[in-house]
């Protein structure tokens, strides 16, 4: 369960990215976050895994209050949340396999478990045959799928994806959606920022629309909106 109460975020440079956000996302929900570029979607998402701290208000994830969470416990929070970053954030010197394995190394999984589980998720994102490649040797879409594989490898309770289909062709996009729906079916909460109108309108889920840092719409089986 993710809960935000009256959350406001003002960046150091004075940009007011979010204003008085109140939201409640139940365990197992699938939520799209939509809105124009610069609306505050990424900021909203970054607060959840504590890349950014709110300037005001409070956030609670699975009973943990992030406003009082001690710095040394932040890693534990992040291990429970799988994040697909808008800019992938792959480690450039590590192979595809090692990048995905890293999320398990930090929790000191055994080599055998790591090998097995990493190959499993690489299979899911269809990158098994590129396990040894470096991120630089992959296309944008392939890098995005590595990022997805890393996000789900540790069976997180929540997967947060910032435009996970942003760099993908339509076919691959649908495949990615299938993956996310699958893990959602197993009870994982999914939070996905997207500009993909087609997907939002086809796979009907809860839609939260953010504009200029405020939630302007929150529909249980919503549409993308912003129709021409």
């Amino acid at each position, binding site marked *: 369960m993710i809960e935000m109460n009256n959350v406001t975020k003002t960046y150091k440079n004075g940009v007011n990215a979010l204003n008085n956000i109140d939201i409640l996302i139940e365990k197992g929900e699938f939520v799209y976050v939509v809105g124009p570029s610069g609306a505050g979607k990424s900021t909203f998402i970054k607060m959840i*895994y504590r*890349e950014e701290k709110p300037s005001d208000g409070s956030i609670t994830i*699975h*009973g*943990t209050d992030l406003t009082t*969470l001690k710095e*040394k*416990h932040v*890693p*534990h*929070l*992040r*291990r*429970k949340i799988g*994040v697909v*970053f808008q800019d992938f*954030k*792959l*480690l*450039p*010197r590590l192979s595809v396999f090692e990048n995905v394995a*890293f*999320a398990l*190394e*930090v*929790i*000191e999984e*055994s*080599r055998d478990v790591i090998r097995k589980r990493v190959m499993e998720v690489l299979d899911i994102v269809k990158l098994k045959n590129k396990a040894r490649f470096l991120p630089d040797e992959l296309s944008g879409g392939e890098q995005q799928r590595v990022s997805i594989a*890393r996000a789900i490898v*540790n069976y997180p309770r929540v997967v947060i994806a910032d435009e996970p289909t942003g760099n993908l062709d339509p076919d691959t996009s649908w495949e990615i959606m299938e993956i996310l729906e699958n893990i959602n079916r197993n009870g994982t909460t999914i939070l996905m920022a997207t500009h993909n109108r087609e997907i939002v309108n086809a796979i009907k889920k809860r839609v939260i629309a953010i504009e200029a840092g405020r939630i302007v719409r929150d529909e249980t089986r919503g549409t993308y909106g912003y129709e021409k």
Partner: protein
Amino acid sequence: MMKQGGPTAMKSRTLVRHGKEGMKNIGRNGWMSFASISAVTIMLLVVGVFLLLIMNMNHFMSSVEEDVEVRVYIDVTASDQEQEELEEELKQLENVDSVTYLSKDEGLDQLINSLGDNSEAFESLRDENPLNDAFILQATSPQLTENVAEQAQELPNIERVDFGEQVVEQLFNVTNILRIIGVVLVLGLMFTAMFLISNTIKLTIVARQKEIQIMKLVGAANGFIRWPFFIEGLLLGVAGSVIPIAVMTGGYHYLYDAYADRLSLNFAEMLPVFPLTLQVSLVLLGIGILVGIWGSITSVRKFLKV
């Protein structure tokens, strides 16, 4: 709900991973690593030389200090009665530990013995002993020797009072100067070495700042990120102590074989090779490790706030 992060023991495979990472870092910054190791090497060479010097000086000092005594030569005209009075008065002086009588014949024996090979020339003196009978005074501590000598000087029936003033003072001075030079030089070099190591590691970190941020975002704890750098510093320190330990041990061995006999003929005596070289080796290794770790800690700390 969230697992609380108490300090859990690191699994050995994780340590192995950190070790590999640390070594990779050293390879990636080849030249800076080389410079750091060289700095540690030079610093430890100097530390080693000074340690050997100072420890030998200390050893020498303490053996000399034990020997420091005041010789009160009795006036030849003094009667037995006066000699006994003098002995009593000497015992009454402040800071006197012991008073022993040394006849002029015993004194000559001592002198001849101490001359070793050159003693024959003096054998002829036995018939006409030029020495006086004397009292040997031991001060309660070596530093008070001069004070005891001054007091004794005031007493009657004394021909002259002798003590190794120059030797003692010079030794104290030399050792003190050595210590000061050693400490200043060593501290200066230690900071240089630390600075270089910390800069080497900073290079690694700056180059990898984005990576560190990514690692943190996917759940790596600070310790996990810090370990490889910690090991990098440690390895740089250890690598830097290899040559100094070898040179110091080998060199002292050589010097000892070459000079120990000759020196002990005179008054000085070298400390034996063992355990001295082992002790100094351990100290050098310890300083190397310390400097390495210190360098890495100072450079990593401020980069971990993501």
